């Protein structure tokens, strides 16, 4: 065991950080520019519409990973937050006659309160019961939305008037493309902030060993409820934007377990422990899904495909593609692997010594 503290490495290397390599930064910058230019590159109505959907899914999967990625608690019920945000915003506009912005804020607040209350019930029980509660949230809200016709329009749907009077369809798509992009950047920023905070360290500790985290002084229940609330608020915000953009809320679609599972699939596929993992996953899965839906919608192929993809991700790459790519890249950079190898060797030695 070396005692020489002179080899102290600079502390920041121990911490999560934005990508340091210059080519990667340039690449990300280019991607952002490309993203912002998208509505002008793709002027067609359908392509713009699909673009909005993809960015919306990126918001959803990033929000999901604020719980699923940090704490390891898998929620299948984030569609509940999405739908509640959408309906609360829609009802705010339609029934309460609020301006769109105010209805949006109301929607986010409603979702946050709902998530905090449901979260208290959900996190009391660890593991399996949590998943069950998230499933129950969706089916419960779906029942309510279909039944409370006077408020939600029932299965016929709720018609929400557009945010800007007289705007063209393609113009509306462009507007909401940017609104969703702003929400995505805000969500990513929040994710990044949590990742770097001691709060984030606590959440990750809960994922690894909840009992141990508690023994080290982490108020695990409060942490989990807070994470669920923040995650739900972003999901609800996406729902609110969706209501104003799409203009028609169908209870079967917004409160569906399949929608919730799409968020999980996208986050896991990209890598739910990485800042841009869920976004990457959304950029791959959402267009594929949209393609199969438009080309083979009647045949249920898109359901089979999502099922198969989820199956493969869960069994063969639960950490997502980002670490897989990183491993591949590391082969080209031998020196960064040295610590690992050395400690593996030490591990071997100490095991040998102990027995």
């Amino acid at each position, binding site marked *: 065991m070396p005692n020489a503290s002179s080899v102290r490495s600079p502390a920041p290397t121990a911490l999560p950080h934005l990508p340091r390599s210059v080519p990667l930064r340039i690449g990300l910058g280019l991607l952002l520019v490309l993203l912002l230019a998208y509505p002008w590159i793709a002027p067609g109505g359908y392509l713009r519409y699909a673009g909005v959907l993809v960015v919306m899914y990126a918001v959803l999967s990033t929000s999901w990973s604020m719980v699923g990625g940090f704490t*390891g*608690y*898998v929620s*299948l019920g984030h569609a509940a937050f999405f739908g509640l945000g959408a309906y609360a915003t829609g009802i705010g506009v339609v029934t309460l006659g609020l301006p769109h912005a105010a209805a949006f804020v109301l929607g986010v607040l409603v979702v946050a309160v709902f998530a905090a209350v449901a979260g208290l*019930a*959900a996190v*009391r*029980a*660890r*593991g*399996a*019961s949590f*998943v*069950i*509660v998230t*499933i*129950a949230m*969706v*089916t*419960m809200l779906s*029942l*309510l939305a*279909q*039944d409370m016709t006077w408020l939600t329009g029932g299965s016929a749907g709720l018609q929400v008037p557009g945010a800007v009077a007289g705007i063209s369809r393609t113009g509306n798509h462009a507007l909401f493309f940017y609104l969703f992009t702003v929400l995505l950047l805000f969500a990513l920023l929040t994710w990044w902030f949590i990742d770097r905070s001691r709060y984030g360290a606590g959440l990750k500790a809960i994922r690894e060993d909840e009992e141990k985290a508690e023994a080290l002084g982490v108020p695990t229940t409060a942490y989990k409820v807070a994470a669920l609330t923040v995650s739900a608020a972003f999901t609800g915000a996406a729902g609110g934007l969706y209501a104003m953009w799409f203009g028609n809320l169908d209870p079967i679609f917004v409160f*569906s*377990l*399949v929608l919730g*599972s799409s968020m*999980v699939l996208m986050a*896991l596929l990209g890598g739910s422990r990485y800042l841009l993992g869920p976004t990457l996953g959304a950029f791959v899965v959402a267009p594929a899904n949209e393609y199969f839906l438009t080309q083979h919608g009647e*045949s*249920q*192929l*898109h*359901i*089979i*495909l*999502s*099922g*198969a993809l*989820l*199956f493969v991700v*869960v*069994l063969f790459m*639960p950490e997502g593609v980002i670490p897989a790519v990183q491993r591949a890249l590391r082969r080209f950079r031998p020196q960064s692997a040295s610590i690992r190898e050395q400690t593996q060797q030490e591990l071997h030695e100490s095991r040998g010594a102990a027995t």
Partner: protein
Amino acid sequence: MPSLSLLAQGLALGVLTGGVYALLASGLTLYFGVMRVVMVAHPAFLFLAAYITYFLHAVTGMDPLLTAVITVPLFFLLGVGIQRVLVARIPQESLAMMSVLLTFSLALLIEGGLGYVATGSYRSITVDYATTSLHLFGVAFPYDRLIGFGLAAATFIAIFAVLRLTRLGKALRATIQHPDAARLVGIDTAKVTGIGFGIGLATAALGGAVLSIIDPFFPAAHWDYIGKLMAIIVVGGLGSVRGAAIAALILGTIEAVVQVSGGATEAGLMFYAFLFATLLLRPQGFFGGRLAERF
């Protein structure tokens, strides 16, 4: 306020439906017991079985209930296979969460597959013995429900007897309660776990046969069952077969009574009301096992 006879009718139907829920929930409880796996695909397998029953009946003219002779062993083997080949691959530390996603993917594959092969439209089987009712004390007991309840009860008693009386049952219970200790006393827990999964899935096969004569069905209908069944096993106490059965009967009855006095939505909401009440008041479940305290 509904009339007394309507209430009695609701009660009768509720108990009968509760019996079918109990059958389905016992399967879920077994998966959870032996492996701590929340098997979200259980209702999807239920509908897969209903479709197999439907096509066997349509092609060969077999009695729908008799098809269980084929589907039950088939599903048993399928269950063992799913556990041994798929679930066992998931690392222990992420099992609780990843197994839900794995079984969710199976549910999607089954739903999509059924929709692809059999389209999304409603199917139902009509058998002449199932369309009439037995009248007792002014309450009608439809024969199809009675048959379903009888089969569910018989299966349930059989599972219970196997768990309590046989060597396999002892091994299963030991594996459920303490896998490490079970291994130490020489139980092949991998094998036993596989068998537990097989029995669990076999209940879905039987349930599918019953379902096919009771209700019309379509591929996406399994979603309606997931929430209900999950609520039942939590209220009963995760991992307790007896607790799940009691909870299923009670919740099934409450659902039916509320349905005749209130409405379908209120009836559906009952499951979730009880689920949340259980988690807030008594997270280990009302009738069941000590397992739930830890999971």
